[in-house]
């Protein structure tokens, strides 16, 4: 392990904003895609599928 403390880990050697900006957006995008899929699935199973062409 390279890190002696959590704050050092968060700082990423001064590049924290860039590194966490990259990992954070990836996690956000994945969470958003999963949430959207679940909502779509729920709507399809509940409704009649009308207007849900795609």
């Amino acid at each position: 392990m390279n890190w002696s403390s959590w704050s050092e880990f968060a700082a990423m050697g001064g590049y924290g904003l860039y590194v966490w900006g990259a990992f954070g957006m990836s996690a956000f995008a994945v969470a958003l895609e999963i949430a959207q899929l679940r909502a779509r699935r729920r709507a399809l199973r509940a409704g009649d599928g009308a207007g849900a062409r795609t």
Partner: protein
Amino acid sequence: MSPIATSLPPRPPASFHLFAYAAPQRFYPLAGRIALASALVAALLAVAGLVIGLGIAPTDAQQGEAYRIIFVHVPAAWMSMVIYLAMAFWAGIGLAFNARLASMFARALAPTGALMAFLALWTGALWGKPTWGTFWVWDARLTSELLLLFLYIGFLSLHSAIDDVRRADRAAAVLALVGVVNVPVIYFSVQWWNTLHQGASVSLSKAPSMATPMITGMLVMVGAFWLYATAVTLLRLRTLILAREGDAAWARRLREAA
């Protein structure tokens, strides 16, 4: 009784057929099982990849900790190209053989491909700022990857602009197939043109130019992204099957059971 009567080759079981799973209602449950297995393995690989990439891999001699962006940047960039090739392939199959499920597969791949292209650009910008001094340059690698994002958006826009779904499939398939030329341009751009973007760190012909934990972490994350993309694509394919074939008796039974 002569033995000849019994030596006839056995008939294949009537239920087996090579293209049985090309029928959406047959593929629907199989897609669910593959998606579940892929999602579980993707989660395990993501945890392992993050532990290796953020915990174990050493600091880079030149780039310090900024290089750790590689553990999301390279998987996203690779998947943006792999998914495009898969999308164009299935769109082409759907176009050539009038196969509904193949067209739905292409349509299911597009949003995840767009997501990967966006993440490749976003993480690349955040990596470019500390290492090159700029978020963006109009060079060959970055511009062709931006074009890939626009191709995905164009595929989805064109598809949703046409009312008849099979006509939409065919029109979008032509766009996807024309856009395929962009994928080798992205891949070879760092060799064909002078660019700020570094060359490939990994190739089949020579040893990787990275420390072992770095390359291991990167490849594990590629596996995680690949299986994630497989899982969400198949789940989206299931929603597309339900939406398009929703009036069929089997789909109505499925909805009533849920």
